[in-house]
């Protein structure tokens, strides 16, 4: 068809703007964004269902109290890890920090509450400082977070070994009792879980939280917008160290003793919990709620393996499979989302 020049144009009828055919709120896009999280919820529901069919009383308050206590160390460690992942980094040193924390606690805590409180605070402070140092090194040396935190992990591990070469030491009974203290039928770990969610809800809405997320989403853009990347790294890894120290303090309520090697059991699971919960390894995306669900999934798999009376070596196998499934789910969702945009 060739346009003839005589065709007339009614100016009044011209569309003012290219018509926007998209709906006001992009529900499908939002659903796709949350797909990894929804998949994690589904997995948790599935595991609870299987667990419940094998064991009575799974949907009880007691069970919630027990499982949360079992998951809380991982949850604390994974909270720090989630912040780091959101920033687009990774923190391996939490393994060393957790070991060192339990070792300090087991050797320094006494029956005197004020001494113990002092050391507990000191451990938390140390966690933040060591994390901050990680962040500073990453910025100053322009090194991969993986390398820097691998090195600090090794160093912290070594120091823990020097202080306490084998598992041992002890903490006062009232410290151990903290984990089973109850309020309104809920034990303190459940309250901690709620506190973590509350913290996240606040943190993610603060400028600091947004800045950390933004730096993980696009570091160059964040820099051009005036963000000091060094400061972001210090705060991010500092928080991670702080949560790792918190994880250590909780962990000794469960073990009652210090261990210079126990921390390594939390490094990869902390990353796995976050990834299962939909946190992106490339930074910028994810929520703590997902991570906490991921931590529950990983913990309950342990229970499941136990009630199935199979070899406990099946636990890492099952965790790995679940991890793969979640990664797959998020990549499928990602592709679907992308093919819609461009």
């Amino acid at each position, binding site marked *: 068809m060739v346009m003839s020049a005589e065709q007339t144009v009614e100016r009044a009828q011209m569309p003012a*703007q290219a018509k926007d055919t998209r709906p006001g709120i992009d529900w499908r896009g939002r659903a796709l964004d949350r797909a990894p999280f929804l998949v994690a919820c589904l997995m948790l529901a599935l595991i609870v269902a299987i667990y419940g069919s094998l064991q009575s009383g799974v949907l009880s308050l007691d069970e919630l109290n027990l499982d949360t206590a079992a998951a809380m160390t991982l949850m604390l460690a994974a909270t720090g890890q989630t912040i780091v992942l959101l920033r687009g980094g990774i923190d391996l040193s939490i393994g060393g920090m957790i070991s060192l924390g339990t070792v300090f606690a087991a050797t320094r805590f006494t029956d005197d509450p004020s001494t113990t409180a002092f050391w507990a605070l000191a451990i938390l402070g140390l966690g933040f400082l060591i994390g901050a140092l990680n962040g500073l090194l990453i910025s100053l040396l322009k090194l991969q977070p993986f390398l820097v935190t691998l090195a600090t992990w090794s160093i912290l591990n070594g120091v823990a070994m020097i202080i306490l070469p084998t598992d041992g030491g002890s903490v006062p009974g009232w410290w151990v009792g903290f984990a089973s203290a109850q309020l309104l039928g809920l034990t303190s770990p459940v309250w901690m879980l709620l506190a973590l969610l509350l913290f996240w809800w606040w943190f993610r809405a603060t400028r600091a939280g947004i800045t950390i997320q933004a730096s993980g989403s696009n570091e160059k*853009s964040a*820099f*051009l917008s005036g963000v000091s990347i060094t400061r972001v790294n210090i705060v991010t890894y500092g928080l991670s160290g702080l949560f790792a120290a918190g994880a250590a303090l909780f962990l000794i309520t469960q073990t009652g003793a210090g261990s210079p090697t126990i921390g390594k059991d939390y490094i990869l699971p902390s990353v796995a919990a976050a990834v299962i919960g939909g946190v992106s390894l490339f930074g910028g995306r994810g929520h703590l709620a997902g991570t906490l669900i991921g931590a529950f999934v990983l913990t309950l798999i342990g229970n499941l393996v136990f009630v199935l009376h199979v070899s406990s070596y099946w636990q890492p196998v099952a965790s790995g499979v679940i991890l793969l499934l979640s990664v797959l789910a998020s990549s499928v969702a990602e592709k679907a989302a992308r*093919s819609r945009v461009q």
Partner: protein
Amino acid sequence: MDLVTVNGLSKRFGGIVALSEAAFSARAGEVHALLGENGAGKSTFIQILSGAVKHDGGSILVDGQDYRPANPDDAQARGIAAVFQELSLIPDLSVEQNIWFRHEPQTMLGTVNRTQTRRNTLALLEKYDFPTLRPEQELRRLTLAERQIVEIAKGLAKNPRILILDEATSALPAREAEWLLKLTRQLAAEGRLVIFISHRMAEVRAIADRLTIFRNGSTVAAHEANTVSDDEIVTRMIGRHLDRLYPERVPTMTQRIALKVANLTSGSRLSGVDFSLREGEVLGVGGLQGHGQRELFQALFGATKAGGMIELWGKPAAIGNPRQALTGKDGIALVPEDRRGQGLLLTKSVRENLTLSVIRRFTENGLLSRQKEAALVKEMVDFLRIRAGTPEQLAGTLSGGNQQKVIFGKMLLTEARVLLLYDPTRGVDVGTKGEIFQLMRDLAAKGYAILFHSSDMPELVHVADRVLVMRNGRIAAALEGEHISEEGILRAAMLETRAA
């Protein structure tokens, strides 16, 4: 008194001199155009002014006071805001979070006050009569043009005394570009200084009070805009006289059909497109932005799913994904819209970017021939006059226009003879633009078939043999011969469909 005075400004990146002894001065209340070819140092200059890059030597005075920003915050504190060429937006934040990033109104809890943010956003968008933006939308779902508009809003949100627009119009459709020009004048009338960078002479003409020309990192001229001719400006910019921008249009098309498209459909954006592109033809695609042009190119390239039929050189083609679209001499190659997002690997070298997708061309018996690769890379770099220190320079550190050239080179190296050029001259300087048009005609003469979209309508009018005008995901008209004119294209683009 001048608001900004710059003297002897120098900046090197390793061995590359980006600025040497550049000078600049501008007053409050004016639109000051900064001109120069690709790689002349314009963006580097802007980045220094806005604190993103530190200079090696020279002095900058703002309000007569020494100014040496350590970071972008310092620049903001002095009332300087930049709309960066590469954009400074965060993909995972919403539109409004991006606009107010780090300047959000806060609640007593230290959290961002979302109601206030929304109110401020709407007020800002209304004050400057912004094109429609949805504040809650996530940035990564936006088109390049929409992102550009968000970046502009972000700059204005700081209420700057000096606003720098680095090729802000280049990603905008005609209507939005016009809006920005008007806005620029309005800002100057409010007493602000706007530093305006563009490769489109008509825009510069329309709004600039004064202009400064950079060449190879130095200032070669500064004028009142109305005292120089276009010709003089271009000659100053590129260091030689440019006879003509548009090459002569010698028809070279044959009867052979290179690409036949029937009933191409994709979602709500493409609803039944039919056309054929012949060997030796440059076929333009025009119309108002957002009527399916982007989707057409993406669907043809296989980057989005689509239904319908595509024939390449007479054979039905199932174009499922980009890799398939690429293969061989019978394939299709694309110059995409978003060069930083889709076209380039910013952390890879110029050489790697050029050759990654055609590695088999340098492979003999399974071994890579570095010599052959180097020879072809050199040929391409020379041919397109890519301004890089060495072929090993990272693509992300090239100037904007030179990045575009690398994408062009990458496409040429695939040997595909059906070329999809989506805005191939975006951000390219006049001299090179002329060369690209000439190149397109030369390729057509060699039997290539070229589908060509440009957001700059005169380019379609002067370069294409025929122009398809799209409206609502369909081809509304195919213009030929004397019917190809800006008016003709607009008319076809805006006419309501007659048949019910």
